[in-house]
């Protein structure tokens, strides 16, 4: 499906939600309970913008579509949003809040803190972050770049992990 078709189909379904989302006091209760809810919401909003328009909304959600097959891949075409790389890029940006292209130790620590918070002590978190970076960091700069991120997750089955069926 091309992007236009996709957004056309989305229209009916998501208009209501989009209305909700465009309101300034955007609150979905479950998201407040979600440890990385804030980051995901932030991921929807393009940088330095307060309001979300529909195409951007759809563009983000497009990351979660199942990976398409049998599509003729034109090298010159930019990376599809729902390709494996596109999905990984989205995930990467959840960590990399300052958009410098690398996940630093601090950023990883923040995510870990959010997800593991209560049961684990600060030092343990720190050492987990250390170890994680150590495993993934190939060029030894103490941070994880997007390529290293991609490489460390090459064995993960993205199809099951990051797909939602929006359209029947």
């Amino acid at each position, binding site marked *: 499906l091309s992007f236009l078709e996709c957004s056309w189909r989305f229209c009916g379904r998501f208009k209501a939600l989009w209305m909700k989302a465009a309101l300034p006091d955007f609150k979905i209760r479950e998201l407040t309970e979600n440890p990385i809810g804030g980051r995901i919401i932030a991921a929807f909003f393009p940088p330095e913008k307060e309001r979300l328009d529909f195409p951007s909304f759809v563009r983000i959600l497009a990351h979660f579509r199942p990976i398409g097959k049998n599509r003729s891949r034109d090298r010159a075409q930019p990376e599809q949003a729902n390709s494996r790389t596109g999905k990984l890029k989205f995930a990467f940006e959840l960590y990399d809040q300052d958009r410098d292209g690398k996940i630093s130790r601090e950023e990883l620590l923040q995510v870990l803190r959010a997800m593991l918070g209560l049961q684990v002590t600060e030092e343990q978190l720190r050492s987990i972050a250390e170890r994680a970076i150590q495993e993934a960091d190939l060029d030894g700069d103490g941070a994880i770049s997007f390529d290293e991120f991609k490489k460390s997750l090459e064995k993960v089955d993205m199809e099951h992990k990051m*797909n939602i069926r929006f359209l029947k």
Partner: protein
Amino acid sequence: MGLHRHAGLWLLVSAMLLCCVSPLKAELKNSQHDSHSNSNITGISIVSFKWEHVKAPYIVAVWVLVCFLCKLVIEANHHVTSIIPESALLICAGFILGGIIWGADHQQTFSLTPVVFFYYLLPPIIVDSGYHMPNKLFFSNLGAILVHAIIGTCWNAATLGLSLWGCQKGGAMGDLDIGLLQYLLFGSLIAAVDPVAVLAVFEQVHVNDVLFILVFGESLLNDGVTVVLFNVFDAFVTLGGAQIDAVEIIKGIISFFVVAFGGSLLGMVFGILMCFLTRCTKNIEIIEPGFIFVVGYLSYLTAEMLSLSAILSCVFCGVCCQKYINANMNENSVKTVKYVMKVLANGSETMIFVFLGISAIDKTIWVWNTGFILLTLLFIFVYRFIGVFLLTWPLNRYRLVPLEFIDQLIMGFGGLRGAVAYGLAVMMDEKKIKEKNLMVSTTLIVVFFTVIIQGILMKPVVTWLKVKRATLHDLTLIEKVQNRVFEHMLVAVEDISGQIGHNYFRDKWKNFEEKWMMWMLMKPSARKTQDHVFSVFHQLNLKDAVEYVTEGERSGSLEFIRNDITSFRIWTEPEVGAECSPCRRDPVPSVSLEMHEQTMNGLREMEDLNSHHLLQEHLYKGRKQHRHRFSRNHLSINTDEDEVQEIFQRTMRKRLESFKSAKMGMALPKTISKHTKKEQQKVRTPNGKNRISVDEVRLAMTPPSPTGLEVMQTQAGFNMTSATLGSHGNTPSLPVSVAGGIENPAFMADLDPVVPLQIPPWLAEAELDSGGVAPSQRAQARPPLTAGDLRRLAPLRISTQSTDSFMMADIPDAEQRRDSFDLPPPPPPPP
């Protein structure tokens, strides 16, 4: 060469068989003999042949042994087993054994009886598969599994029965006295995919997880349908065609729901019972595993008793309880359960296949009807494929990741029938079903066809079709973290888009679970350490620690002294500017290893010591077996420790006194002087290296076989060497060497007072006070286990630096252990 080996084994096996066959003959003769000899007892017999007394258990034991021997012979050659699956070879071995017995007895004395099969051989396999079921995968695909199990099995049964009946009407099978109902009965028993066969064949072909769980889950869950269909049609056959009306059919349908859901619920009840039991078994950890097996077996039998689906009951029992049990139980119990279950399941599987082979060699049951048999084979094969394709097509529209065509092919091909069908066939009543023997023969042929031929073809087909294979790899930490992030992400997006999806349910279940289930079913201590990412981290650290120690032992002790940097290639590059904050809280193994890794690259010695101390703390805490020191089941090595402790204490006290007196210039006892020369020699070799090496030496020095004085002395020698390496404070480090073993620590204790007198220059700055000796006492007081050994080393070294905080820190630990070892309380640290 290989042939000779095999010939030898075969001779052994045949000898074994003759041994077991001849007792049968002897038994027949003896029973006659006994009846005669009873009447005229002439005198006391010194040795008598009491075959009757041990007959039943003896035969069982011999058969188990024979089956295992068959497996041994089969697995001897890997070339054969990679082409032909083991189950097929076991069946062939069964043919051979059956032939031998047939030749000896002219009747088949041993065969796979339904009672033995359903009550003894099948339960272990099912309990094992339930307990080791990958829950997440199972429940994600539960919809597809259920559809295939229920609808697929019904489809198979119905089509097969109807087709065969149609063919009979058409005259393809000659003259047979089988009614439609009997055909349906036959169809129902042969339609079900068999879990034993699926496991046996698929374990060699590592297909991808989803495919495997679909076929395997289907084979387990279709038991609910099989039981119902079989009972219903059996009842119908008994009633006769005339009495079947709508009521009966409705009753049949209702019984399906009762049997299936009842079985599952019963299984869950037993699972929860198991969880409660393991929650409370803190004091009897030694037989904790026993509970699992008994309750699992009871769940099977109870379901059988209530005519519910026993397999479903077992499976759900295992599925429900595995997480909580693994969290509640001791590590050792978890391992025990895992391995014993594997042994039982594997053994049962072996026996099932061998006996299937044996049961086939029986002239009395064979009735050959070419049409019937060939048509059955054909229909089974064809309808399976048709069924799979028909069912997967609507499923794919609802699945997240649709099932590919090739995967569907393998699913169809993997519809293996097995011993369950045979058991059900034998259970049929001959009076009701005149052609029972024909059906049994057909079932046997179908089973052999699927297991042997489809088993052999499975691997080539999978390779030829390029089916996606399973990827086995250890999870790295970042993958684990990322998986968690993905989960949260999916939940969030589902929330945003308002969908009630899979992840929504999973999230809700997780919350429910955390709130209620864990509180009820898990031990409080287990609840705290539940986080996945942390446990992966912990596992990785443990793995690193073990690698570290084995690397140390392998490299040899001297190497450590010389190349302490290079020998640690297992570590990756150091962190840049990472802080090292030693913390002594309990579950902090993580920090220590990381610290250790940094220090390996030559940071300040302070951090060295912290790291080693913490590393050894961690390793120490990882071990729990010493808790059973006072139980009935500990190994003999523990008893030595107790004696050693006492000897130790006595000699230490003596030495302490003599040391004090020696300080005041009195002569030393002669025994001490014997060793001093050795020490002096070793002392001369300077080797001003890093402290790190000392610990490594000790780590290397604690081999599991402490025998004889030589070991101690060499240890002492090395430690003397290394002792000279450090800047100062050697004295307290010496007793460490003493501590590194079980035998004759008293000897090493002698060194204590010696060193200060003999090596003045090193000791100039040393603090020769009771504090120096005390740590050794305390250290040696600890049980000389492999991990405990390591532990002793650090406190001593830290004390040489005599930073009070560490000494203080050490003491509470020692005091904790005091009650276990009635030792004299350690002397207070130096002020």
